C-alpha cells in the first residue's frame, strides 16, 4: 500500500493512517506532557538523515495539533498519525539536513 493510499483525512483534517509506516527511528514520550513531545521531536529529527522517517509515540492529545503544525513550521513532512490501542504514533519524514 502506498502512503497516499494509507492516508485518510478525518473530519477535522487530521491525517490518520490505517496502518503504521516503517520508521527509521522511534522515540517514546508516552506519559510526558506538553511540551516534551515537541522538544523530543526537535532533538530526534536532528539525529536522523534527510529522507528518513521518525516515529514518535505519545498519549498527549495536544500533539494532534502540535506535531503537524511543528512539521509545517520547520519544513518537515508530516506523514500521518496511527492510532494504537492507548497512544498515537506520529510519522515525520525529515525534509532537509539540519
Amino acid at each position, binding site marked *: 500500500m502506498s502512503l497516499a493510499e494509507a492516508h485518510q483525512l478525518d473530519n477535522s483534517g487530521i491525517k490518520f493512517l490505517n496502518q503504521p509506516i516503517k520508521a527509521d527511528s522511534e522515540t*517514546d*514520550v*508516552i*506519559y*510526558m*506532557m506538553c*511540551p*516534551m513531545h515537541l*522538544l523530543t521531536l526537535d532533538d530526534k529529527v536532528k539525529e536522523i538523515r534527510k529522507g528518513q522517517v521518525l516515529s514518535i509515540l505519545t498519549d498527549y492529545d495536544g500533539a494532534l495539533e502540535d506535531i503537524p503544525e511543528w512539521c509545517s513550521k520547520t519544513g518537515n513532512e508530516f506523514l500521518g498519525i496511527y492510532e494504537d490501542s*492507548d497512544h498515537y504514533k506520529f510519522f515525520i519524514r525529515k525534509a532537509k539536513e539540519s
Partner: protein
Amino acid sequence: MKKIYLDHVATNPLHPEVLDAMMPYFRDDYGNPLSLYGPGFKAREAIEHARESSASLINAKAKEIIFTASGAESNNFALKGIAYALQSKGKHIIVSKVEHHSILNSARFLEKQGFVVTYLPVDNYGLVDPEAVRKAITGETILISIIHASPEIGTIQPIGEISRIAREKGVLLHTDSVAAAGNIPVDVQALNVDLMTFAAHQFYGPKGAAALYVKEGTRIVPLIYGGIQEGGRRAGTENVPAIVGMGKAAEITKRDLQKRIEHIRPLRDNIISSTLKIDKVILTGHPEQRLPGHASFVVEYIEGEAMLLMLAAKGIYSASGSACSSKALKSSPVLISIGVPVHLAQGSVVFTLGEGTTSEDITYFNETFPQVISRLREISPYSKGWDETEAPTCTAKK
C-alpha cells in the same frame, strides 16, 4: 567529651570537596538552568555533569538518571510511576516485608487504588528467597521492588538472582539502593535492574538530592507534572547546588569506595566481635552478606532508646533502627519479620561507621558499650527475665 558518630546510615557529613563544588551555585552561579543566557547555561551544564557522574557511580547512562529530592521520593516515583504506567497490563506488585516505609506505604496507597500487593516474608537473616519471588509472580504482576540493603539490619539482598527471575518472567524490578549505593559497589548492568533509588547524603553528598535510575525505554508516569525539567519526568526548578553536590559526591565515592570499605570493615568486625562477648546480645542481619560498616544488635532486658540516650551522654551517637520503633515506640517491622520476639525487638541498636571513624573511636566504644548495658540492666525491671507484657507491633502487612 569525645564525640563519636556511629549513625552513618542516618546521614553523613558533607565531604569538604563536595561543599566546595556546591558553593558557587548558591552565590555566583545562581542561574535557572532553563534560562537562555549565560548563567542559565552554566547551571544547565553543571546539572548535566552531575548527571554523568551520578550515572557513572552505578554504571548507568546519564539519560537514565532522574534527579529527585530524596530516596523516599524516588521510591514513591518508582512504585506509583510504574504501577500507573503498566496498569493496563496488570495490577499486581511484589515487595518484601523489610522494605523502607516509602515503599511499604506507597504499596498500601496503591492497594487503595485497586492494585494487589504481595508482601514477601524473609528468613532470619532478613533475606528474600528468590524462589519465593518466582512463586509470587502471576500473569498480572507488573513490578517487583526489593530493597538492596537494609539500613536496619545491614543485610544485602540477592538482587542479581531476583533480577534473573524477573527478566525470565518479563516483570520489571526496582531496588531501593539508598543504603547500598555509596557503601558497596553498585552496578545496574550487573544487577540487571530496571529501576534503582539512590541518595546523595548516604555517600557524603548533601541532603535533598537523590535520584531514580530508570532503564532506557521504560515508561513511567511522573509524580510531578509541570515544566520540562528532568525530561518532563520530574517538574520543578532544579536544586542546582544539591545536584552538583550529588555529582561531586558520586565522583569522590567512585574514586574512594574501595578504600572506604577496607577502612571500615575491620573496625565494624571489631565492634561485632567485642559486642557479642557481652551476655545475651544477638547480632541482627546476615553475618557476612551485610553492609561493610554496619553492626546491629538486639540486647536483652533493656530498651534501645535507653541505650541510645546513655551512649549519647557518653558522646556516642547511634540509632535504634527504624523511625517507627524510635519515634512511635513500636516494634520494628523489620525485626519482627526476621523472627525477633516482640520484647527483644525493643532492645534494638544499630551502629554504622564512616570514613571518619577511627580505631580509637572503636576502642572507646568497646569500653563504653558494655558499661552502658551493665548499668541499664542493673535498673531494668526485666533483668530477672521477661514478663508477659508485650509492646504493640508496627502494622506490617501479613
